C-alpha cells in the first residue's frame, strides 16, 4: 500500500469515529438536528423503507420512537476517486445494540456513504437495519 493510500485510510478511520459519535448522539438526544447531517438529496433506507430529501428524512426520524444506541463495532473505507468524480467519499459500517422505547434491546447494523461538502461531512446514503428485522415481516 502506497503512502498516499495509507494516509487516506487513516483519515477515513478518524473521520468515521468522529462522524458516528456525532450521529448517534444526535439520533438519541438531538434528533431535530439530524436532518442537517444529510445532503439535500440524501437517502435514508430504514429497514427497507426508503426516504429521500433532507426534510423528509428529518420528519421520518422524528416519527421513530425514542432510541438509545450503543455502538460496538466500526469499520470504514475510502472510496476511490474516479468512481465519485474526485469527491472525497467514505464508506462507513457501524454495528451495535439499540433500544427503542418500550422495546427490548436489539442488534442493529448501519452503513453510511458520507462525502465532504465544504468543511462538513454529509450523508449521501444511509442504510439502517435491525438485525432480526425480518422476523417482524409477516410472511405474505
Amino acid at each position, binding site marked *: *500500500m502506497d503512502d498516499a*493510500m*495509507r494516509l487516506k*485510510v487513516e483519515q477515513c*478511520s478518524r473521520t*468515521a*469515529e468522529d462522524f458516528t459519535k456525532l450521529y448517534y448522539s444526535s439520533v438519541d438526544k438531538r434528533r431535530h438536528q439530524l436532518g442537517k447531517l444529510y445532503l439535500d438529496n440524501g*437517502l435514508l*433506507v*430504514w*429497514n*427497507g*423503507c*426508503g426516504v429521500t430529501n433532507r426534510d423528509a428524512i428529518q420528519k*421520518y*426520524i422524528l*416519527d*421513530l*420512537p425514542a432510541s438509545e444506541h450503543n*455502538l*460496538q*463495532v*466500526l*469499520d*470504514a*473505507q*475510502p*472510496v*476511490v476517486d*474516479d*468512481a*465519485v*468524480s474526485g469527491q472525497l467519499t467514505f*464508506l462507513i*459500517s457501524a*454495528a451495535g445494540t439499540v433500544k*427503542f422505547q418500550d422495546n427490548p434491546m*436489539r*442488534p442493529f*447494523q448501519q*452503513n453510511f*456513504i458520507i462525502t465532504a461538502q465544504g468543511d462538513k461531512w454529509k450523508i*449521501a*446514503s*444511509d*442504510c439502517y*437495519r*435491525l*438485525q*432480526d*428485522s*425480518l*422476523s*417482524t*415481516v*409477516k410472511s*405474505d
Partner: protein
Amino acid sequence: MSMHRNLPRNNQGTSHSDHGMDDLITMKAGYKPIRINRVGSQSYYQTSSYRNSLLNASYTWHLIDVHHRGMYSKADILDAFFNIIGDSEFYPVGYKEGRVTDMFIVRGCKEAIQKLFHRELSLRMPDHKLVNLNISLNAAQYSSGQIFPQKVLEKIVERQFKRLETTDQISNVLNLQQIGNFAEAADIIINLGSKPALELLCKVIAQNHNILNTINGLNLIKNNITDPSPLKEFVHSSIKMIDLRHNNIQHPHQFNELKCLNVDELYVSGNPCTTEMNYLDEIKKYLPTLKKLDGISTEKIKQTSTDTIEMMYPGDIILDDRDRVSFTMYRTSDMWCQVVVEHKGKCTKRNILKAIFEIVEGEFFPCYYKASRIEDTFFVRCCHDQLESLLDVGLALRLPDCDDIPMTLKMNVSDFKKGHVEPMKAIIAALSTRFNVMDKCLNLESLHTSPELKNVIVCLSHPHTLATVLTTASRRFLVNLEEIRLGKNRISSVKALKTLNSARSIKILDLNNNLIENLKDFENIIKIPITELNLDGNPLCKNFKTAGDYVRQVRKIFPELTKLDGYPITKQVSSAMRVERNFLCSLEAYGFVDHFINHYFPIFDSPLRSQLIEMYDRRCIVSLSFNYDASKLNSYTTGRTRKYELLNRNLLADPLVPTPNVMYKKDSVLDFFKYFPASEHDLFSFTTDVTIFTDKLVCLTVSGIFQEPATITDVEFRLAFTRTFLFKQHATELGIFKNTNEYKIINDIIFITNPTNDQLKMSFRYSKPNKTKLQEPTVEDKEYLFVMFQRMTGLKNIWCTRCFEDANWDFKKALEVFIKLNQENRIPDSAFSES
C-alpha cells in the same frame, strides 16, 4: 375468505419450480407419461400465421405456454380459453401451474388452435388485459397408452355405474356431479360447458346399452353446462330424472331440443335461466311430459307465475329520433311504458341491463322483466328523462362482440292499477325484511334475490339506484344502523357510498365480491369512522404486491380500521417502524441485484471462490469487522470464532491491540478469499438494499445468514453478516447497446456477528438451490432474456423471436445474430418498435 386469496399468486409461495426443467409430463391416473421435445417443435408467439399442415397430424401433441405473469388464476385462464374456443373440441392435458407461466398440452383440436391463432395467440382476461400464449406445435408424439378424453370418460362412467345411487324415490342414479373432481380426470380438463365435451360424455353413456337401460336418473350437478341439448342422445333410455342444478344454462328455450326425452323430473335451480320470470312455465312448455320441475309439481306451476301487466292499449310506438315529438307528449304521463329489447338471442338479460344502466342516469326501475328467445320486455313508469337518454343514443344498445341491439318504446300501454308493483314501496319492504334489529345490521347481499323485488329490478351496480337505496335505508333506520352488507352486487362505482356520511352510526361496511377496481376510488368518499371493512373479492385487491402493503394503503383511507376482510389489524404505534425485505432506489436495479446475488454467493460458497476476483476492480478495498457475543458460544463452537477475530478491523477495539488494515488491491483480496472458511449462504435469508444505482456507481447492502458447513469433525457454525458492496462503472459499450454497463467491485465492507434466535430459527429452512447451473433455460429465463433482448435492441416481438430461435436461446449468440443482420442491413425499419 381471506385477503391473501386475492393477491397475485407469485406472492403465495416461492417454491414453485420452473417449467422446462422437467419436460416429462407424468400422469397421476396411470396413463403413459408424455415426453416434450421443445427443440423439435414449431414455436409461435404473437402471430396469426402458422403452418397449417402441422395441425392436421392427429398423432402429435401441441404445447401451450400461458404467460400470465402471476396475475391470473388457473380458473381465469381456462375460462378465457373456453371463451375463445366456444364449441370446438379442447381438452388440456397435464396442466402445470407456474409462477409466471402455466403450461399444458393438447391433441387433435385443430379448430380450437385455429381460433387461438385467429386471436394472435392472446387471451382476453376479465379485466380486459391480454395474456400472451406461446404455442409449440408438434411438441410430443402421441402413442397408445397415453391419455385421451373418451377413455377418461369411459372409466368414470364405468366406475360410477358400479355405485349407482338412490335419491328422492329415484333409484339407479348415475352420479356424475363435478366430473372434474374425479380421480380419473386428474390429468385432463374436460369442461362440459363446451358442447363437444358434453356430447362425448353422452355418447360414452349411450354406447353402453346395459347402462342406458339400467339407469333411471342422471346427476350432472355443477358441471358448468351451458347447453343441455346433447342430452337428447338419451331418447331411447330408461332415464326419468335429470339433475342439472348449478350449471350455466342461460335461457329456458335451450331445453327445446330435449322435447324428445321422456323425463318425469328435471332440476335446474342455480342456473342463470331461473332468474327469468316464468322460467318454470317456459321449460314446461318445452318438456310437456314433465311431472316435477325443481321439486315442484308441474300442476302447481300455472298458479304461481302470473305476475305481469295486462296490455290495455297498443301504445304509441317510439322507434327512433323521428318520433321525438310524440315522445315528449308523455312527459307527465304516469301510465306504464313497455320497453322492448330485440336481442334475437344474441345476449343475456344481464348484459342488456348492464348496457341500459350505463346509459340512464337517475332512478330507473324496470318492472315485470320478461326474457324470451327473440326479445326481452319490461315496463317502467314516471321516468321520462331516463327514457329520453335511451332515445338520445338512438334506442340502440351497444354490447361487446355483437351488433347494436334495437329497442322500441311503447308509450302508455296500460293504466297504473292497484296491485301493480311500486318500486319504492317494494324497496322499503325488502329493506325491512333484510334489517336485523338485534345486530343493527342491514344485509343487502345479492339484493335482487329478495322475494319483495320479484317484479322489479333494483340494480345496486347502478350508482343512482345504490344511492337511493342507501339514503332510504339511512333515513329509515337512523342511528339503529351500524352495519351494512353490500356484498355480491356487482358494484363498480363507490361514489354512491357518499350517502352513508349522513348515517354517522355506521361502523361496519361489507363490500365483498364486487367489482371495485381502485382503492383510490374511496378517497374523499367516506368520512364516517369505519372500523370494519371487507373488500375481499374485489379487483382492487390484485393491485397490491403484499398483504402488508394492502393493509397500509387501506388504512390510509380508513384510519380507524381495526378489522379488514375479517382479519384484525392492530393499530401501528408509528408507521415509521415498518419493515420491508428489500429496497431498490431504482426499479432498474432489480435485474442487477438478482443477477449479482445469484451469481456471486453460489461461487463464493464453491471451490471456485477465487474466480470472483475477476469481479473486483484493480484498486479494490475489502475489510471485515467481527463481533460475537461470547455467551452464545457452546462447546461445539468455541474456538471457531478465532479465524474471524484475526481479521477483525474494529476501529473501536482496544487501542493497544493492533487493528488489521484494509485489504487493498486484488492480491490481498485473493489471499482473503483463500483464508476465509468454506461457507454456505442461505439466499432465502437475504435482505437487500440498493441505495445508489447510477451509470457510474452502485451501492448494494446484503444481510443474511451463512454457515460453515458441517464436516466429519464439526457441526455447522451459523453466522449473521451484513455486506456493503460499492460497484463502479468499468466499461460502457457504446452504440446500439448503450445500456450494457459493466461494473466492478471497488469496496466490499463485511460485518459478521452471531445470529439472533429468530434468525437461527428462520434460516436454512429451504433446501439448497440446485447447484448444477448448466441446464436448459426455463420458460421463465426465456421470458426474462426476451424482455432484456427487446429492451437492448428495440426490436418488435416477432424479430426478437427470430433472433432467439436462430441462436437456440443463447443470449449472446442472439445478439450476434442481431448485429450480423443489422450490419448486412437485413433488418427493415419496420422491425423496430415505434417508441
